[in-house]
């Protein structure tokens, strides 16, 4: 009956983690709405949010700027963390993630191309078109990574190849931005460094639909993902349709990453750091448990980082990637040291 004890222990651990995460989440949401170049008092926030009260300026700041931005942080942060988790499972490599594998940069490149091409003729690009462009770019990068992964079996070489692909894509993106119209440059420049700023409610609506739908599918795939963690041969022996599963995993992780890139540009290290931290908190890698917490963890991580990016040097704003890198990269180094990643 000790097995029951162990499962209770696990259950308890899960509940505690979830509670802490939930509290952190709420606190960060409030802080994100509260803090900034103009500090809105918490009492006012409540009245603005629920009773349409407060001053007109505060009302505008919260409803038009901070709330959509916070929503973006929540949704895109979760998407990034999940995307990373999927890629780590797919490549059986703890330091795989959309950024280090160059998938974010691939998406960034195609988005930049589309933006430059469209903005020279039309005033705006639809979010759907941007997501589609990002998805294509993500899939192209992913294709290259897969090709390399087929020939190079070493875990570290995979990462190196990914980083190289990332550099190539970034270089081309810079090249395109340099020669873009003046009008679109400012926009592009900010975006290409990674930022949640300028998110509109329309954007939030689109990203919510895409990300939540994709994440729901990922969650429903917990079982085969768990089987795949045992390696392809055993997964097959458990009855998983490997081909279909691999295609699904590539599409889902690319979709999540594409959505993030289309709206916020490339954001580094969240995809590696968050799943790792979540797994070590939960002391399990069971997808059924990890996936929801991972999403929540990604939201928290991005909310925190965005808060730092916005407030530390206010009114100057850091790019979100600089903050996520500072906080996330040490975690990655920690993983490499602890696990002595082979190869």
């Amino acid at each position, binding site marked *: 009956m000790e097995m029951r004890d162990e499962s209770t222990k696990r259950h308890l651990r899960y509940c505690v983690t979830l509670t802490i995460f939930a509290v952190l989440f709420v606190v960060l949401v409030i802080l994100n709405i509260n803090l900034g170049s103009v500090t809105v008092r918490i009492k006012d926030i409540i009245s603005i949010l629920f009773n349409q009260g407060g001053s007109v300026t505060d009302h505008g700041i919260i409803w038009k700027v901070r709330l959509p931005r916070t929503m973006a942080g929540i949704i895109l942060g979760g998407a990034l963390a999940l995307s990373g988790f999927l890629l780590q499972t797919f490549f059986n490599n703890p330091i795989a993630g959309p950024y280090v594998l160059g998938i974010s940069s691939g998406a960034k490149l195609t988005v930049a191309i589309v933006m430059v091409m469209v903005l020279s003729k039309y005033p705006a690009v639809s979010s759907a078109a941007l997501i589609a462009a990002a998805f294509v770019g993500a899939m192209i990068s992913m294709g290259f990574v897969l090709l390399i992964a087929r020939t190079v079996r070493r875990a570290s070489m995979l990462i190196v190849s990914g980083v190289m692909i990332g550099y190539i894509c970034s270089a081309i993106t810079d090249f395109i931005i340099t020669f873009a119209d003046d009008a679109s440059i400012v926009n592009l420049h900010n975006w290409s460094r990674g930022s949640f700023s300028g998110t509109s409610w329309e954007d939030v609506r689109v990203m919510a639909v895409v990300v939540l739908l994709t994440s729901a599918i990922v969650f429903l795939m917990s079982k085969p993902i768990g089987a795949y963690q045992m390696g392809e041969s055993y997964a097959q*022996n458990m009855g998983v349709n490997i081909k279909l599963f691999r295609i699904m995993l590539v599409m889902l992780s690319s979709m999540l990453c594409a959505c993030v890139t289309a709206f916020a540009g490339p954001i580094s290290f969240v995809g590696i750091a968050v799943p790792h931290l979540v*797994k070590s908190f939960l002391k399990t890698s*069971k997808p*059924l448990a990890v996936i929801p917490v991972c999403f929540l963890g990604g939201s928290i991580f991005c909310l925190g980082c965005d808060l730092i990016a916005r407030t530390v040097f206010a009114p100057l704003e850091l790019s979100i990637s600089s903050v996520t890198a500072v906080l996330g990269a040490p975690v990655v180094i920690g993983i490499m040291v602890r696990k002595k990643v082979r190869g």
Partner: protein
Amino acid sequence: MMEYFFYTKQLTVGYNGKPLIKDIEIRLSKGQILTLIGPNGSGKSTILKSITKHLKSIYGTVYIGDRSIDDMSNRDMSYQVAVVLTERLRTELMTCGDVVATGRYPYTGMLGILSEQDKLLVRNAMELVNVWDLRDRDFTEVSDGQRQRVMLARAICQEPQIIVLDEPTSFLDVRYELELLNILRTMAKERDITVIMSLHELDMAQKVSDLVMCVKGEYITHFGTPREIFNRELIRELYELSNGSYNPLFGSFEMERPKGGAKVFVIAGGGTGITEYRTLQKKRIPFVTGILHENDIDYQIAYDLASEVFFEKSFERIGEGIYQNALRRMKSCDTVINCLKSYGEMNERNKDLYEEAVSAGCFNFISVDFIN
């Protein structure tokens, strides 16, 4: 006529469209154990992978209960076949219990949550292979042998009709090797599970298998019962033994026979000689031995190690002819080792032999350990 449960028709296996082994015809009834033996790189794993659909076969078909595996999805296969592979499993934060529980995968619902029944089966399987105590330990932190047993428990709780194991005993010490093979035998007998595996240990293969297949070269040349397969010549050919020999009675191997003219005579019998023979072999000293009976245990080893063996037919008194021959040969040696401490009616001539040696003033020893 037996009803075959698992069989192959003209199965040709290989990699990248290149055939490695052709026309494999396996026929197995339920509850039988088939062992694949053969040298490294001969294609045992290739055959196993083709049977489990991990490798696409090049030609021919594998049938499980009259259904071709080509018509079966991975899911269908998962109810029929469980595998224990050689590849090292890398898990992350999974306990041994978690690993075993993955065997229940085909039976759990959409989200893979274990029912009480599933948990019971996991426990039963773990208890069967003695790993229940490890259930909360991290899979990466237990020993290779323990890991192998955990993987067997996983396969068992998958409740398959067939278990396929690739070199299951590789990391196991003798105790667990015996235990594992015992469990397989039990599973075969009590649950009618068919077992197909590859083994390096020929002695074990001989003892545990119902059928044995020799894998070497382009075609399977030998497929039969252990009685048919395990004989001196067949095994010698299969492994191209040039510097040793195989003894089918013990299922054991002896090192190469020392070369050169023998100057040592060993008087032995009833198992007293074996240690001396082996020591002489280690020192590369060629020797002659006698007078043994054909059914003597010493005779089995002497046959492979001695330059010359003087022997009498089983259950017969040592005759005068053979005695004279042995005596003549002994006199041409410098050293005589007498392993016998007592003599009976059947071999009393050995006593005469010894006394002759003493009176002839040969160097006499009771053990080869005294020879430097």
